[in-house]
């Protein structure tokens, strides 16, 4: 078993734990924006896609990388955009009048 696996597992477990503690505090009011925001954060996969697409090892890997960059970048852009649009709609009675 490669040693990298153990340190990756460390990061995975700790991040999962932090995620669990942070996300369980999100009010049900915001569950839809929560999902679109985590989607946008998950789109960080784009950094791996950029490497695959730009390393130019084989034609196949470049093609797959380019598809991956487009797919994940669309999630990143669209996810942040729609989350912000949704959150702008959440107003209290007071801020609505002002």
């Amino acid at each position, binding site marked *: *078993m*490669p040693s990298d*696996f153990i340190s*990756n597992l460390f*990061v*995975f477990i700790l*991040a*999962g734990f*932090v995620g669990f503690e942070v*996300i369980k*505090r*999100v009010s*049900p*009011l*915001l569950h*839809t*924006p*929560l*999902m*679109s*925001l*985590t*989607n946008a*954060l*998950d789109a*960080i*996969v*784009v*950094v*791996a*896609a*950029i*490497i*695959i697409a730009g390393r*130019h090892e*084989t034609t196949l*890997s470049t093609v*797959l*990388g*380019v*598809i*991956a*960059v487009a*797919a*994940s*970048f*669309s999630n*990143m852009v*669209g996810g*942040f*955009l*729609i989350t912000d*649009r*949704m*959150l702008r*709609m*959440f*107003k*209290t*009675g007071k801020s609505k009048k002002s």
Partner: protein
Amino acid sequence: MNSFSPTQLIDFTYLVAAVLFILSLKWLSSPVTARHGVLAGEIGAALAVCATLFDPELVQYKWIVVALIVGAGIGIPLGMVRMTAVPQRTALSHAFGALSATMIGIAEYYVRAPHVTKFGMVEIGLEVIIGSLTFTGSLIAAGKLQEILPQRPITYRGQNIVSLSVLGTAIVIALILTVHPEYTHLFPAMVAVALFFGVLLVTPIGGADMPTVISLLNSYAGLSAALLGFVLNSRVLVVAGALDGSSGFILSVIMCKAMNRSFTNVMFGAFGQVQAKAAGTTEDKTVRSATAEEAAAILASASKVVIVPGYGMAVAQAQHKVRELFDVLTKRGVDVKFGIHPVAGRMPGHMNVLLAEADIPYDRLMDMDNVNSDLPQTDVALVIGANDVTNPAARTDAGSPIYGMPIIDVDKAHTVMVIKRSLSPGFAGIDNPLYYMNQTLMLFGDAKAFVGDIVRELGGVAH
């Protein structure tokens, strides 16, 4: 240690991005700070993407730039959809996320093949299988939500055995590849079988179970990204994937609890089929109905009103009329709140977003527990397009398929009014005893038109 190598600097940027991602989710816990959360996420993502562009491994930029432009070209319109289309947009974005992770996994496999280590193959196999099934599963979910595909569950005998053996086949192929890395021609078969399994997984699931399915697919999309992080040794992917995965997991648990069902029951139970026996029982019971004029008079004399919206409100596009009703009642000094069941709508929080879009202040949107403690002191509960989540049989009838499911106790209000097209049973195909209670008035008609009529009546009374 005076200078960092470019790779270390990039890694350091990724660390900053990971911290910003966690802060982003932390700030989302309250509507007051939530928009800072989006900003933190955006900064983190932008830093990570920019840093990656300086990676010394990159030799050509042309296709990266093209792909980024195409991605933005798809992403911007998908970020601008109407709030009613958010569930299918979300399903589609799970599909894109999974597609991306799968493509990278496949590319990585072919770069290494046939010299893949056993451990590397286990990681890649798992990553590609989960990514592939999430991709097709999410596409089917999006198709159902967009109503391109039938929302009713599609089932046949022996379905679960067929589905599970398809998944088993994909796993067996992955194991063969682990033992015999030289059989590279089997890899596409593994991908194809996993893609097929995703279709089989979601096809039998009905529209009313979509909140759980979307959450579960969310969790899988996160998991595939985290696994990709394992494959590529990329910690930022592991962190982002773990955050996304735990978010999807928490939401799935909340959705399952809100329906009093287990994961296995949602995935394999094919809920929402029409139950033939439900139809015959409605004949002998009496139903009281009322006109818009009568409903308006009752609402006008109430001091506390709780509105319970459901998917039917979204289908009828009635949320803006509901806002008008909210305004006219509030102006008359009526205390109006909204009671929102966790599984109302087609994804977690769907109703909240629709009502917020219609400009209803979020401090009027109550979750199930809060509104249930208010309902016994409520004069009128107005149910708009919700059915099963208000069914008192869930509390009282141990024989009911939804027995034990937490519901919004509208039957405890002094008067209940239900806007509904007809007495036909809801998605679960279960008759709702609420409609035959003495304090219940049925308002038959289209939700949008009926609420509009009530608003007009109330406007008329005011002058």
